[in-house]
């Protein structure tokens, strides 16, 4: 049987379902975001007090997790244009939908920028007067921080816009010239993405601890994003597989490939974290080791062990088996689990920075749970709204047929 283009059309009940998902997510998101904002007042102190501090830290946790998910979608999308491969075509539309959340999430950093002095110590007058900060003032100054925020946001939004627009054009015209354009745009895009997002991770996260630095940090963060994004789109695929066109487009092989990719990213995350740990630990230099002292004392070691087992050992064990990767139910579970455990990772990237290195204390606020849920709801609401906007398979992609036959020839 030759499949006609008709069968690529998104099934109507799918659009309905996605709309419903979007409303549910909107509801959840708004409720939790409301809770998050209420935290400022429940924790007390008004706009300059402790409650605001807790709010901003939790806000950063939630923001970073889901901002990263969108940015991760964008970089996977670009990488996929470069490398080709069947695994990428079936997730292209979810990736595009995910990347489009950046239109919103980029701007969600603004509250942190406005209230920067309560979370980024270096932006306070005392911080700026500090000797070490002053020595970096060429980079660490507030006006330039605003400029950098603008650069990151423009880059992310511009690339998302161009890639989705051209993808649509490719769909409509089936022109290989457009495909070539997408490839040509993506190639430098990946490079620029990595460099800019490294600076972004320095600005948004690393400078919470303004003396500390680690050269692998940006790479590590971006891999974390890719992991989150991949988990999101894999979970989405398992939801979509019941509906046309995915019901006949997806094979076990796609799940297998995506599962392998997820596995690879888990390994990569572990590898980079381990590299940073062993080098910092063995060097034991005062300026660097603070980061680990704060994360291995005063109760934080529980989080570190949780990440070791939860973010590496368990996913490793779950994803090593081939049948497991091919089972959509199981891979859905693994994907959701990975998003959850990665939220813990983001939490431990942010919160321990605020403890005292001489006497670290574990700190956990209910806001740290509320924020990721609130941002997640918002993110998913946009994501599910974007998803049915285009056919779920990129009809104009040159390798589509090969991709769809993937896993059927044996």
């Amino acid at each position, binding site marked *: 049987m030759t499949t006609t283009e008709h069968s690529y059309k998104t099934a109507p009940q799918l659009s309905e379902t996605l709309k419903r998902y979007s409303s549910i997510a909107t509801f959840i998101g708004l409720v939790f975001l409301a809770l998050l904002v209420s935290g400022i007042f429940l924790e007390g102190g008004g706009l300059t007090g402790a409650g605001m501090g807790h709010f901003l830290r939790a806000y950063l946790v939630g923001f970073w997790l889901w901002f990263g998910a969108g940015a991760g979608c964008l970089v996977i999308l670009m990488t996929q244009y470069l490398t080709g491969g069947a695994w990428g075509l079936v997730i292209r539309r979810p990736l595009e939908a995910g990347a489009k959340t950046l239109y919103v999430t980029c701007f969600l950093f603004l509250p942190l920028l406005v209230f920067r002095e309560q979370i980024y110590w270096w932006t306070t007058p005392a911080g700026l007067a500090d000797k070490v900060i002053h020595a*970096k003032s060429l*980079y660490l100054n507030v006006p330039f921080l605003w400029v950098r925020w603008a650069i990151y946001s423009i880059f992310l939004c511009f690339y998302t816009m161009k890639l989705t627009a051209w993808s649509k054009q490719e769909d409509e015209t089936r022109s290989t010239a457009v495909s070539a354009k997408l490839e040509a745009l993506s190639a430098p895009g990946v490079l620029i993405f990595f460099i800019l997002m490294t600076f972004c991770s320095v600005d948004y996260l690393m400078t919470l601890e303004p003396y500390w630095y680690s050269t692998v940090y940006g790479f590590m963060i971006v891999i974390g994003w890719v992991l989150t994004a991949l988990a999101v789109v894999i979970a989405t695929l398992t939801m979509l597989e019941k509906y046309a066109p995915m019901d006949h487009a997806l094979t076990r092989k796609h799940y297998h490939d995506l599962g392998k990719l997820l596995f690879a990213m888990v390994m990569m995350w572990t590898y980079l974290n381990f590299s940073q740990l062993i*080098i910092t630990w063995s*060097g034991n230099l005062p300026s660097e080791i603070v980061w680990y002292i704060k994360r291995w004392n005063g109760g934080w070691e529980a989080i570190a062990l949780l990440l070791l087992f939860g973010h590496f050992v368990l996913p490793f064990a779950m994803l090593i088996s081939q049948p497991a990767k091919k089972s959509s139910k199981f891979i859905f579970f693994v994907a959701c689990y990975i998003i959850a455990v990665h939220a813990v990772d983001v939490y431990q990237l942010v919160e321990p920075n605020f403890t005292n290195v001489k006497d670290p204390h574990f700190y956990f606020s209910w806001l740290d749970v509320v924020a990721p849920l609130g941002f997640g709801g918002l993110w998913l609401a946009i994501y599910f709204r974007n998803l049915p906007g285009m056919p779920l398979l990129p009809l104009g992609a040159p*390798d589509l047929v090969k991709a769809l036959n993937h896993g059927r020839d044996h």
Partner: protein
Amino acid sequence: MQPVELPDKIHVGPVIDPGHSLASVSDKVAGIVLKRKITLGWVFGLLISFAILQNLMAGATWLLIKGVGVWGINIPIGWGFAIINFVWWIGIGHAGTLISAILLLLNQSWRNAINRFAEAMTLFAVMCAGMFPVLHTGRPWLAYWLLPIPNTMGMWPQFRSPLLWDVFAVSTYLTISAVFWFVGLIPDLATLRDSAKSPVSRAIYGMLAMGWRNSARHWQRYEKASLLLAGLATPLVVSVHTVVSFDFAVSIIPGWHTTIFPPYFVAGAIYSGFAMVLTLMIPVRRFYGLDDIITLRHLNNMAKVTLATALIVGYGYTMEAFFGYFSADTYERFMIWNRMTGPYAIFYWCLILCNIITPQFLWSKKIRTSPGILWIISIIVNIGMWLERFVIVVTSLHRDFLPSSWGYYAPTVWDWAVYTGTIGLFMTLIFLFVRVLPMITIFELRMLLPSASVKEPVAQ
């Protein structure tokens, strides 16, 4: 779930030239070993390589007679050519395992034509690499001290030292590469055994093939073992250069102690490895008329990998420079500034030229598919990667924390003798390899042929 039948677009070309059959690919590759006359060019090449190898003989002999003082190393630059060349060779080795293992896991069919050659290259490169630390000990006959075996000293190696990790990593790498390579060779040795005419070759290949008889039951276990080996070799290859990077990074020398070293070294290794595969494959492909098996698509793909890894390496340089500033650490800042403007600045800028600027030409598909230009670029990249190690080792060391301990490093003639000698060794082994073993995996080539796919008769 019926296959969708729409025309498929092929970008650059097929992985194997149409027109080949099971018998023809077997005969073609086996014929290079069995039938092809020894050409003057080959003999000439081997003799030249062998002559260069004598540099190693002379250099190593003189080293053993006089001690490591014949090299240019001295405090503060106690690590000179030996470690530079070690890292360089190990890095070159990486492409072989990467091509055979990772691409096997990723089901990339284009690997088949080049994996055997690349694996052989890995083995030879690791052999060359392994020689340097052993020679650098000054007393190689005591190299067994590096191993954790009971000894007359009542001492054990220090498991908290990256240099010991190196021993484990490199020896494991050599062993597993050799095993992987040999396991891959077994079916092809059987082919050579069955195609050979002379009783001597038949006996030799027969012994090496160990009685492989292409049994389906054997193939089933064989495939499983290959897959497992590939699965193990993939993290292994990453670990090896990671451990090599730890040699530097776990110290506290500015320019060495930086957390990006592991991924950046691995990328650099793959980069130089692919460059070396290109350097070797392009002439071999030409002299042995293998254009139909190692197609332009292979070159294109390898060039793409080269470009991608070049960009990662470039990212590494950028991060080093940025964090040199961002650290606000006197020593870090001085190191990076000195690297760019100090006495060795010329090497740094040459390295940027070779490693970052030159590969930008690979953005053009035209260049990626012109063997000649690609070959020149690959050689430049090889030089660039050597310079990278030189810069990392020498510029980080030559300005000690204490200005009174500052020094300058210049290799002596014996440094060069050993270095060029290993190139001679490498080339000699490559020349011998292409004559005595099939340089392309024949049985995997067969699998690529259209006629190899199973179409069962309807009357089953």
